[in-house]
């Protein structure tokens, strides 16, 4: 376990003194299944982290703990300086500061694209409708689908829906974006448009934690790649090191499987 902590707490590329996310000895169980085992990870501000690993390895669980969609059983998570103890008051604050994009998009099907984007800013931040719509259109332009604003999610392609989901999250002006396999449910020809949107976001300096199997994205965008297996972080490395000289046997096996 010591070795893992050392790797995981290696100095982050940027902003290590005032990290965006710090996870310390995080443990989580589903019944008797140990979903997260002593997870330690520090993410600097503006850092782009890609998390990969076989399915069931705890990748999604880990990022879902950051905005408390899952609760942890022991350990500590600090997000943007706010200590996230289960049931604590900081949870609302942290959820407003982190945006999340899901594998299944999870757009609200009974609302138009524009309404999807304006709901949270209006109800949570209390901004006016006009202001919320202006912001929404700004981000819909940024993800290159402003012309779809009046449509319903079911009228859009998967790639467009996922870009709306990204715009919807950005409308809350998050400091950290969490991506949970954002391209896994997409048809192959739509993967690129979503990845391009994420690359744009990365280039603007957004702090990103991204669970993905897109190794091309990891190679070109990630500052560090995190490899998880069976609830543990086995390896944290820069993409160069990760792909050319993986340290761990299981990492090598995994990379052999997917390439």
């Amino acid at each position, binding site marked *: 376990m010591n070795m893992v902590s050392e790797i995981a707490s290696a100095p982050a590329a940027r902003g290590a003194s005032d990290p965006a996310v710090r996870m310390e000895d995080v443990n989580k169980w589903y019944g008797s299944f140990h979903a997260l085992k002593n997870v330690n990870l520090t993410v600097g501000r503006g850092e782009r982290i890609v998390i990969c690993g076989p399915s069931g390895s705890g990748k999604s669980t880990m990022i879902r703990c950051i*905005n408390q*969609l899952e609760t942890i059983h022991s350990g500590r998570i600090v997000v943007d300086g706010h200590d996230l103890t289960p049931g604590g008051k900081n949870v*609302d604050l942290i*959820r*407003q500061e*982190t*945006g*999340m994009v*899901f594998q*299944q998009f*999870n*757009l*609200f*099907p*009974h609302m138009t694209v524009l309404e999807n984007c304006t*709901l*949270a800013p209006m*109800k*949570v931040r209390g901004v006016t409708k006009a202001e919320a719509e202006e912001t929404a259109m700004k981000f819909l332009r940024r993800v290159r689908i402003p012309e779809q604003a009046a449509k319903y999610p*079911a009228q859009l392609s998967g790639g467009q829906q996922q870009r709306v*989901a990204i715009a*919807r*999250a950005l409308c*809350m002006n998050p400091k950290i974006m969490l991506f949970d396999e954002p391209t896994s449910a997409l048809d192959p020809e739509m993967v690129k448009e979503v990845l391009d949107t994420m690359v744009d976001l990365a280039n603007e300096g957004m702090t990103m934690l991204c669970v993905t199997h897109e190794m091309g994205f990891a190679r070109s965008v990630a500052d560090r790649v995190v490899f998880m297996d069976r609830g543990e972080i086995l390896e944290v490395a820069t993409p160069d090191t990760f792909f050319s000289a993986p340290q761990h046997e299981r990492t090598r096996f995994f990379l052999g499987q997917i390439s």
Partner: protein
Amino acid sequence: MIRIFGWNEFLVIVMAAQWTIALSAIAFAGGSVGGLLIALMRVSEVRAFRLFATGFIRVFQGTPLLMQLFLVFFGMNIFGFAINPWIAATIALALHASAFLGEIWRGCIEAVPKGQGEAATALGLRYYHSMRHVILPQAIRIAVAPTVGFLVQLIKGTSLASIIGFTELTRQGQIINNATFSPFLVFGTVAAIYFLLCWPLSLVARRMETRFSRATAR
């Protein structure tokens, strides 16, 4: 002296349908409020709420509506209220409807994909806004058809209020029958009026069901 079942007697029965409609409407309105509360308690994260709602539903689903009417009717007297069939029937039917609608609507709320609530939570929406703007609007679409179906059951159930002396359609029929001794004509008329009240609702429910399944098939 036996009266003949004629046009006047027929009209008296038809007019009594208004009390059936009024009782159904009030019970349904009360049941909607109660049913929403029960449904929300049933899906709550608070264990005590869930237990209370489950118990409430079990009791009302596991006892005959007639006993529920009796218990409220005689119970009110025991607790010092004057015996009033109107109020007793309204309360009993509203509680009955709360339990059944609560259970129907719980299913509808749970039928909304879990990701919807998670997306709302991840955006920072708290319980009220998440329910009000994300979960319930989607649940309502699923709920319309079974809710109308239950309304039909409720309208027919109001006939039991005749037994505690509430003069609605069925009771008016009994009164006319006692004077005319033409049970087949009288209760045939009563049944036909129930049918005319319920059948259009069943049609509406079925049409909504088809429309919903088409809307979700995309």
